[in-house]
């Protein structure tokens, strides 16, 4: 079995301290997840840039990585989040455009547009509107949980914020999303 599938992220990163090229194995393992996450927020073209920026920054920071954490994905998502913030205006524009016409701005092909319109049912447009209306830091937490499947602890680690802050930001964001979905249930307590 190749090393790239048997070693933990932490070990790969530690190996890259001595052999920098080993960092490419980390790219092979996680770049797809990061790209898809960013593409859902910003579209494929911007995702190409953000993925490159993320891994370049991660490579330069690799000696600071705490190898007590075997999984590096939350760390990478944290770096990615910082780069996504540079495109905040474009992200909001994207959600707003979708909420208005049911089509994402990058869908330039007519057939793709028609397909998107058909799938943009009544729930998705208000959801996109809700995402556009969130504060950036609340949106980051919400989407790291919903789209990147990070736990509260992982989000806290990724964004360097206390878990209590993760909970309060997530609750705030979910209140907005529920409003958009027409919820009447004010209780927001949840478990991690």
């Amino acid at each position, binding site marked *: 079995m190749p090393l790239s599938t048997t070693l933990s992220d932490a070990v790969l990163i530690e190996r890259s*301290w*001595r*052999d*920098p*090229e080993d*960092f*490419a194995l980390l*790219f092979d393992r996680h*770049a*797809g*997840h990061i*790209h898809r996450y960013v*593409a*859902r927020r910003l579209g494929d073209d911007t*995702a*190409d840039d953000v*993925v*490159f920026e993320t*891994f*370049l*920054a991660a*490579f330069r920071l690799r000696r*600071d990585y*705490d190898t*007590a*954490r*075997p*999984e590096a994905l939350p*760390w990478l998502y*944290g770096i990615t989040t*910082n780069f996504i913030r540079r495109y905040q205006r474009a992200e909001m524009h994207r959600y707003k455009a979708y909420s208005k016409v049911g089509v*994402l701005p990058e869908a330039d092909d007519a057939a793709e547009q028609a397909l998107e319109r058909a*799938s943009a049912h009544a*729930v*998705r447009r208000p*959801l996109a509107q809700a995402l556009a209306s969130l504060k950036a*830091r609340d949106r980051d937490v919400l989407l790291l949980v919903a*789209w990147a499947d990070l*736990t509260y*602890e992982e989000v*806290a*680690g990724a964004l*360097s*914020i*206390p878990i209590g802050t993760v*909970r*309060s930001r997530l*609750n*705030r964001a979910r*209140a907005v*999303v*529920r409003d958009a*979905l*027409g*919820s*009447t*249930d004010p209780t*927001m*307590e*949840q478990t991690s």
Partner: protein
Amino acid sequence: MNDLTDLTELRDLFADKPHPTADRLAPARAALLAEARMKQRPRGRAVGLWRLMLAGGLVAATTAGVIAVQTVNFSAPVSAAEVLRLAAEAATTTPWPEPRDDQYLHYERIAETRSEKGVPNVGPRHITGEVWESVDGSRPELLWHKPSKSRPQDREYKELLTRCPGPGPTGVRSGPSYADLRGWPTDQEQLRHKLAERGNEMYPGKDAATRTWYGVRDVLGSPVPPKQQAAIFKIAAALPGIEMEELKDATGKSGVAVTRVDNQGRESLIFDKTSYVFLGGQELVPGQGRELWSVTRLQITDVLPAWSKSLKPENCV
């Protein structure tokens, strides 16, 4: 609507976005490899940079306390209850100029999380923030979150938070302001009831002692007037299941701790070893890790810093 419907709907949004192809990722991978090949192999392994940076931050955070602490030479306590009784005494003998309702309590809040060896994803984090808390809660609270020493690339952020008059968007009522606490009873039975009520708001359904402990822990997360602080420590001293141990606080200072153990883990209140002044706390979940927190450099100020005028107040929390 089911509690998780919103997240389920959100998970479906743009979920048809496919994983990128290898061709799509190839340019970024090639650029990364090019960068990697430019690096020379180091002569030795540079270990502990993160920890060195962290230690530097801790040293800076522990210098120059603002409120003078009176040192009381008690003989070494023999039980957790005795530690709390000494802490109650220290709370009322330490000089403290009572703030006016229109002033602010300005302090630093430090949190550090350490995972147990082998536990994924809950890595060490060191978080520092400055807080300006309106004494009577009538003015917005200012928070200045600073980048972690281990994550200097993160941005700092500042926010002005207003208290909601009733339960906030999370459905939980804001904690009591300093002036509210000043109005709390010091009578043991009445105060115990208040603390249990607060503990029950956050963690309903627990037994009375656990509710009271949670209330104690929650209230002590921000500055508390000396008389009420002393009364709270006396109540905690009478709770079952407390024990004494030696622990370091979030600033690295060694202290004496009162720990309560339940099926969730161990929660501790940490006190200065000599003066018995309250330093902070620790939450330890066996098999997972622990979080340390401290409130330090407490002082009283009349106004918020001038730069806060450029901040827009957030919705109430």
